[in-house]
């Protein structure tokens, strides 16, 4: 059995006295597609933050790509994050940089050479169908194009895991479908994907594993469906 890529073991995270998530345990295998679903405030974003270790658990432990939250040294955070790509609902593209520069960012912070950065950026932009937009600034793009740039940036450094936090939240249904198709094709190519969404119907049943959150706790999928 392959070693798990992500393992949550009785994880809890509180902000002040408010418990954002409690007693969360699950694991994600390499190459898996997981959908993390639940209403707003259920703890989806908290779990994604715990995976890229923007936050550390207040109880339990998180292990991602061999990095254990209980034993993280200062330099480990950067090393872990270079193995993860992240896509946000609000894209978080740098407004003063071109599409090319935005996509190049993860490679540049990792110290890649200019030639290899250029080669990889051109390749990933071509994969996303954005070659013709490489010199544009983010505000010159449509919402769908901006999200594709965000995906291209997340995929630039060949991550083993792609996190998508409500990636379709700001998009129309048609564009949302394209973005989900894009994530599924990335997954088919071998990258594990964890997508947080309040609407699990965006991903066809059988194409992913569904994890349902309710008030900071994982709940049984059947029970969750009954409440809908």
């Amino acid at each position, binding site marked *: 059995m392959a070693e798990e890529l992500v393992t949550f073991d009785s994880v809890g995270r509180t902000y002040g006295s408010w418990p954002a998530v409690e007693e969360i345990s699950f694991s994600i295998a390499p190459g898996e597609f997981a959908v993390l679903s639940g209403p707003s405030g259920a703890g989806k974003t908290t779990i994604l933050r715990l995976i890229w270790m923007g936050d550390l658990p*207040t109880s339990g432990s998180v292990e991602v790509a061999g990095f254990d939250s209980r034993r993280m040294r200062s330099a480990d955070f950067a090393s872990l994050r270079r193995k993860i790509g992240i896509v946000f609902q609000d894209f*978080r593209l740098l407004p*003063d940089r071109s599409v090319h520069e935005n996509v190049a960012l993860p490679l540049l*912070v990792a110290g890649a050479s200019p030639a290899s950065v250029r080669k990889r950026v051109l390749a990933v932009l071509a994969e996303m169908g954005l070659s013709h937009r490489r010199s544009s600034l983010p505000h010159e793009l449509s919402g769908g194009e901006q999200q594709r740039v965000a995906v291209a940036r997340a995929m630039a450094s060949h991550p083993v895991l792609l996190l998508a936090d409500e990636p379709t939240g700001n998009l129309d249904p048609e564009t949302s479908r394209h973005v989900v198709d894009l994530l599924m094709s990335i997954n088919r190519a071998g990258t594990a994907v964890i997508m947080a969404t309040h609407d699990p119907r965006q991903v066809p049943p059988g194409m992913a594993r569904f994890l349902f959150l309710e008030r900071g706790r994982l709940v049984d999928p059947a029970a969750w469906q009954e409440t809908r």
Partner: protein
Amino acid sequence: MIHGIATVLRETLLNLRGKQGSVWATLVMVSLSFVVFDTFLVITWNIRSILRAEQENVGMEVFLSDSTDEQAARALADVVSGMQGVRSVYYVSPAEAEALFRADLPDRTDLLDMLGDGFHLPASLQVSLFDDYRTDERMNSLAAALGRLDGATEVVWGEDYLPGLNRVTGALRKLDIFAGLVLVISISLVVANTIRLAVARRSLTVEVMSIFGASDAFLRMPFLLEGVATGLLGSAGGLAFTALASGMVSTSIGHGFLPGRWMAGVLLLGAVTGFVGSWIGLRSGIPRPRR
């Protein structure tokens, strides 16, 4: 490594681009602070130069008894030459002493004439000392040792004013250090505030870079470089302005400008101050995992 440095430099330039107003405002403020500091340094440096020249003139004069003939005096000079702290010894014969008196005090030569041919000034040894030995304590003990020599009647070494001179020099040195510390603290706070604003303005960039695996050093470096550059350019600007002003007033008030070593020190102080300021400014703003 080289690519990382190039990226950091590029990020530093991007930091500076688009906020030229605040960059200039900070530079002007840092430069003006350095103008005040440099002016203070020029004044104290000139005073210290005068005092140092005075201190360098401080030597010892050992007056010899009438019974000490030239041969004995020269033998005594050899003994004194071998004493610790003595750089050189010069024998002044009675005839030379009289000639010196007449040259130094031409209006008072009548005094010598009045005393008649039978009078002659005493022979002496003029003792020059190494710089380290011009302290009150060392000169006191050397004077005592010289006074015990056969043939020596009196030792004169400026004991009335040298202690005061040393005290003033020491006080000026402390004043320079104090002014430097005040400058470091005040400019650091100015730079810290500028860097804090720069980090806030670029919070999205910093956050995204952190999320995509930028190391702590990578995130900090552009802001630290900005701080160092601000301090360095500010101190250079302050020096240039002070040098210009110094040149303009030098015709009416004769003085010297700071030597190269001091100017290098001022530039270094600027760079260090900028670094300290940006380090303080970065204490908040760089994202860290919340525990």
